[in-house]
C-alpha cells in the first residue's frame, strides 16, 4: 500500500519506499521484533545442528556401552548417558534432524494437500465446497492427537507413518485458511479481469490466486511446525512414532521416565530440546504474522 501514501514526506523517501518490495518490507518488520529474531535464531541454531551436528558428534550413537550407563553429565558426556550407556548429547543432536524433518515435511505435506483442497473448495464453491468443508469439519471435530493416534494405529507404528498422520491431521487447518482467502481474492478486480480476458481456471488458480494467498499460509506453517514437532514427540512418547533405536526426542523422554528420580538428566535434556525448538518456531511464527499481516502495520 506504500505506493498510495501521499508523498508529502519528500521525493527521496518516496523513491526509497518504491524500491522496497512486500517481502523486503516484511523482513524489515520482522527484524523490528526482538522476540521474533530470538525465535529465528533458535530455529536457525537447530537447523544448523540438524544439518552439520551429526558430523561432529561421537560415532555410533546407537552403540550401547552397558558399563557406562546412567552416567551424570561430565566433560566426556556433556549431557550424561542413558540407560544403555549411550551419549545423550550426540543423540539429541541426531534427534534434531529427526524432529525437524518430521516437522518440516509433515507441514509441507499438509500445505500441499490443504492448499489444493482449499483452492478448489473456495474457487468452485457449491457442492464441491460443501463436501470438502464438511470433511474438514469432521476432521477438526476430533482432538488432533487422538486422530493422529488412530491413524498411526491403522498404519502401524513407525516414524514415516507418524509423519503421515501428523500431515493428515493438519490438512483441514490449511485447507480452511486457503479457502477463506480464496473466497475474498476471487472477487478482486484482477481476478475478474483475468476471467474477462479468457484465462483458464487452472492458470488463474495457480498463478494468481495461490501466490496471493500464501502469506497467511507461511505464518500458519511456521506455527504448525512447532505443533507438528510436539505431536511427533507425543507419538514417540506413546511408542507410536520412531522405532528403537532412533534417537527421537519424545521416545527418549518415554525411555527415561523410569529414571526420573535416579538420573534426571536423561529426561531434562530431551525435554529441553523439545521445548526450545517449539518455542523457537512459535516466536518466529508470531513475528512473521506481525510482519506479514497488513492489518498490523501502522
Amino acid at each position, binding site marked *: 500500500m506504500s505506493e498510495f501514501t501521499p508523498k508529502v514526506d519528500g521525493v527521496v523517501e518516496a523513491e526509497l519506499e518504491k524500491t522496497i518490495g512486500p517481502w523486503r518490507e516484511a523482513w524489515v518488520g520482522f527484524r523490528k521484533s526482538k522476540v521474533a529474531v530470538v525465535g529465528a535464531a533458535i530455529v536457525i541454531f537447530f537447523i544448523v545442528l540438524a544439518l552439520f551436528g551429526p558430523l561432529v558428534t561421537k560415532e555410533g550413537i546407537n*552403540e550401547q556401552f552397558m558399563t557406562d550407563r546412567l552416567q551424570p553429565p561430565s566433560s566426556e558426556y556433556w549431557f550424561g548417558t542413558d*540407560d*544403555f550407556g549411550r551419549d545423550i548429547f550426540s543423540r539429541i543432536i541426531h534427534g534434531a534432524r529427526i524432529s525437524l524433518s518430521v516437522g518440516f515435511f509433515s507441514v509441507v505435506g499438509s500445505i500441499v494437500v490443504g492448499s489444493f483442497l482449499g483452492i478448489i473448495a473456495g474457487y468452485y464453491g457449491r457442492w464441491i465446497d460443501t463436501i470438502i468443508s464438511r470433511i474438514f469439519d469432521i476432521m477438526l471435530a476430533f482432538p488432533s492427537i487422538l486422530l493422529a493416534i488412530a491413524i498411526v494405529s491403522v498404519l502401524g507404528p513407525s516414524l514415516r507413518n507418524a509423519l503421515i498422520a501428523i500431515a493428515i491431521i493438519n490438512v483441514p487447518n490449511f485447507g480452511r485458511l486457503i479457502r477463506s482467502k480464496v473466497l475474498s481474492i476471487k472477487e478482486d478486480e484482477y481476478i475478474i479481469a483475468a476471467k474477462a480476458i479468457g484465462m483458464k481456471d487452472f492458470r488463474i488458480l495457480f498463478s494468481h490466486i495461490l501466490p496471493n494467498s500464501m502469506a497467511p499460509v507461511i505464518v500458519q506453517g511456521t506455527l504448525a511446525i512447532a505443533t507438528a514437532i510436539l505431536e511427533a514427540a507425543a507419538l514417540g512418547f506413546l511408542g507410536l512414532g520412531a*522405532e*528403537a533405536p532412533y534417537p527421537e526426542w519424545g521416545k527418549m523422554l518415554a*525411555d527415561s*521416565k*523410569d*529414571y526420573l528420580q535416579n538420573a534426571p538428566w536423561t529426561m531434562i535434556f530431551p525435554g529441553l530440546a523439545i521445548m526450545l525448538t517449539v518455542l523457537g518456531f512459535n516466536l518466529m511464527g508470531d513475528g512473521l504474522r506481525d510482519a506479514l499481516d497488513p492489518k498490523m502495520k501502522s
Partner: protein
Amino acid sequence: MRKGKLWSFALIMLLVLSTALAACSGGDDQEGSGDKDKDAADKGGSENKTLVFGRGGDSTSLDPSRVTEGETFKVTVNLFETLLNFGEQDTTIQPGLAKEYDTSEDGLTYTFQLEEGVKFHDGTDFNAEAVVKNFERWANGDSDTFPYYNSMFGGFKDDEEHVIESVKADGNSTVIITLKRPQAPFLKNLAMSMFAISSPTAFEKGDDEYERNPVGTGPFKFVEWKPNETITIEKNEDYWQEGLPKLDRIIFQAIPDNSARLNALLSGEIDLADGINPADGVKIEDNDALQLFERPSMNVGYLGLTVTREPFDKKEVRQAMNYAIDKQSIIDSFFEGRAEVAKNPMPSSISGYNEDVEAYAYDPEKAKELLKEAGLENGFEMELWAMPVPRPYMPDGTKVAEAIQSNLADVGIKAKIVSYEWATYLDKASKGEADAFMLGWTGDNGDADNFLYVLLDEDNIGSNNYTYFKNDETHKLFLEAQTEVDEDKRIELYKQAQEILHEEAPWVPLAHSIPLLGGAKELTGFVPHPTGSDLLSNVEFK
C-alpha cells in the same frame, strides 16, 4: 490510574490468599474424613485392619478353575482352599482341606481324609460329596471352560489320555481318587490354586454367574468386584483355623503402571505393592517407612524362536542367536542384578534341573561362524517382539528388546522391534506369527513338568508352546517322566530332555528373576510365595 492499579493488586492478593486458605482447609477436611473411614473399617479398634494390595492387573475371573492366569489366583488363593497346600515358601506338599493322604503302592489310588466341620461361605457343609461334585464338574467340561484341567490331567471324562479314572466319596470325610496310570506330579497338581474346592450349591447356579460370585472355604469371603479397579474381600468369621485370618478386609487394587504403583506405595495409598521395578528396589530399602520383599524365584524369561519360520527353522541360526546375546549385561542393567542368568528352560530350584548343561557363552564371533554355516554370512532381517507389559520375569520388555537388538546388530542381524497390546501379542504369538518373541513363565506347582512339558512339548503347540518346537525324543521323555513314580529316574529323564533342548535351542533362555514387592514397615506375616499367589491370612499390621 495509580490508585486503580493498587486496588486491583489488593483484590488479586485477596483472591490468591483465599484460594490458598480454602485449599488448606480442604486438605484438612479430607484427612479428617479419611481417619473416620479407617476408624469405621477398624470397627472402633485403634489399629489398621484393612490391607490394600496394589498389583499390575485385574483378575479375569474369580473362579480359579477357569483360567491359567496369575492375577486371578492372587485373589482366589485367599477365598478358596485346595485339598493339599504348598509349603509356606516352597512347593512341598502340605495338608490342606485334606488333613491326611495315602498313596497306594502302584501309585494309582489316592485316599484323602478331609478336615471335618468345615463350612463354605454360603453356610453349606464341605464334605466328601462336595469334593466329588467339584471333580465331576471339571471332568465334564471342555478345554474352553477348564483349560488348566485339560493340560494337568490329560483331557476330560471321555478322552483316552484323561488320567483320572474315578473320584469317589467313602462316607462323609474320605475321598478316593483312582488314576488310569500313575502321574508323578499328581499331588502337586492338586495343590495348584485352580483346583480349589468350590461350594457345589453356588456353582450349580451356572458358570458365568459363579465367576463373579465365588464361594469357597478360605479365610476370606468375597465382597465386591469393580472391574479394572478393585476386588474387595473380608474376613470369614467362621473360618475353621483358629485365630485366622488376622486382617478384617483386603482390597486388591489394579494399578497397571509400575511407577504409579510405587508412588501409591510411597504416598501410603496402598500398603503392599507387587511388581516393583528392579531399579526401584534400593529406593524402598532406603525408605524408613517401607520394607522390600523378595519373592523366591520360580520363573524364566526367554526369547522364543518360532521354529516354523525362516530362518529359525535352522538349528545353527537358533544357536547363533544364543551366542549373540549378552545375557549377563542385560541382567546387570535391567534386572539390577536381581536375577540369575538362565541356561535351561526352568530355574535351578526345580528338581530335575540339569547343572551340567554348559550355557551358551556370549560370543559374537562364534555366532557369526554359525550364521555362515547356515549360509547367512550377510545376516538377515527379522522382527523382534517386545512385551508391552512388565511381568515378574521381565520387568521391562522394550528395554531388554533394545539391548538384544543391539547385540544382534553386532553379528549382522537386523532386528525390527514390534509390539502389540498384551492380549493381541499372546494371541498372535501363539499362532506362530512372530519370528522371535519375548515371553516368560512362572511355575504353578514347582514341578519340571510344569515348565518343560507345558512350554516345549508338541502337545502344547497352540497353547503354551509358542515356538512350535517339536521333537520326538523330548516328547517321549516328557510322557515317560509324567508316569514315572521313582523320583531319581524322573530327574534323569528331565536332565536328558534339557540336554536336547539346549542343543536344539528353540529359546534363548534369558533370566530367572527375583520379583520384588514393597510393603509398609508395619506389615508382618507376609511371606511371598514362589508361585506368585500369596496367602494373606497371617498378615497383620504391627
